């Protein structure tokens, strides 16, 4: 891992961790992420017992050179964008931790969990 920038070092660590121990219902497209460490795709399943049970979504993470001091750009991509009051039809997610409340202690995993949680708390579409 020599010669990597601090941002790349951290992304590499996060990627290894996600591949080794993926959170339930999530899978990182490791081939794609290894090709370009700054653009990840994560396949996500709607949590059981929620309105999104059985649905599959794709999340795209874009990391800037200042990551983790700057938040990643996270959007839903692909042909299935979840119908949710905080998700626009173009895939944009309205979530405070992705903008003002971002903290460098947050990670791809914690952002994914927050998004699943946000979807799960929805009572009606």
């Amino acid at each position: 891992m020599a010669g990597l920038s601090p941002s790349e070092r951290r992304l590499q660590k996060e990627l290894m961790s996600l591949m080794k121990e993926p959170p339930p219902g999530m899978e990182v497209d490791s081939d794609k992420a290894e090709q370009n460490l700054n653009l990840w795709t994560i396949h996500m399943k709607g949590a059981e017992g929620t309105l999104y049970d059985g649905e599959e979504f794709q999340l795209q993470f874009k990391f800037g050179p200042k990551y983790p001091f700057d938040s990643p750009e996270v959007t839903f991509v692909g042909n299935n964008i979840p119908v949710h009051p905080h998700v626009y039809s173009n895939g944009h997610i309205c979530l405070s931790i992705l903008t003002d409340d971002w903290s460098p202690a947050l990670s791809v995993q914690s952002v994914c969990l927050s998004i699943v949680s946000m979807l799960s708390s929805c009572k009606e579409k």
Partner: protein
Amino acid sequence: MATTSSGSKQTPPNRDEGSGDQKKTDGGNDKSQIYDCNICFDTAKDAVISMCGHLFCWPCLHQWLETCPNRQTCPVCKAAIDKEVLKFFYWPGRGGSEIDPRDEVPPRPQGQRTERENSSIPPEQRGMFDDAITRRSESNSMWSLGESGFSIGEFLLGLFSSTSSLGDQRLRSGNGFRGADYGYTSPGGLFSAGGAQGRPGEAHAHGGARFDANVEIEDMFFKLFLIFAALCLFYILFVF
């Protein structure tokens, strides 16, 4: 890059202290992970601990605080964080420039210790300041005497005791001008007897401003005037 899970019980690096302890008991294969910085997820280099108890590399935390100058918060728990109030941590061979060869266990951070604040007043003037305070409290006791009900006998008794003790103090602080002290205190008693409520505040201000040389001269003139006034009053009291 293996994609299959090897079955090792290694928790992801993003966790707080609680899960770090858990890993330790799990017998995790990378013990140094509990010393990971919460920002770069690497072993903390030039480690610092916030007052809320979270560990960071100093360069990482510094960069974060620079990124958001108007929102200085802990990245983990969002508690307010102060660059000046951090615990610095040193341990051997785990990155950082400070290598402590004593122990494998990181030493406990040192307790906070601050020097006593140095007063800008020179010692000889400080003596006078104390004197001024004592005198103020003495004269305050005179006010209360006056307010609680006044009789000539009580007044004279109080006057005598307070002036004699003040005389001692003045001698101690190197000012042998006893007459001035009589003058200063006795009108105080008289004024209070007369019920002038504004006086204690004035005496207060006077005590506080004594460090100024001009004020001191003024004060002396004031005292002389008071001696004169007191003598007049005594004359009136005893002659008529």
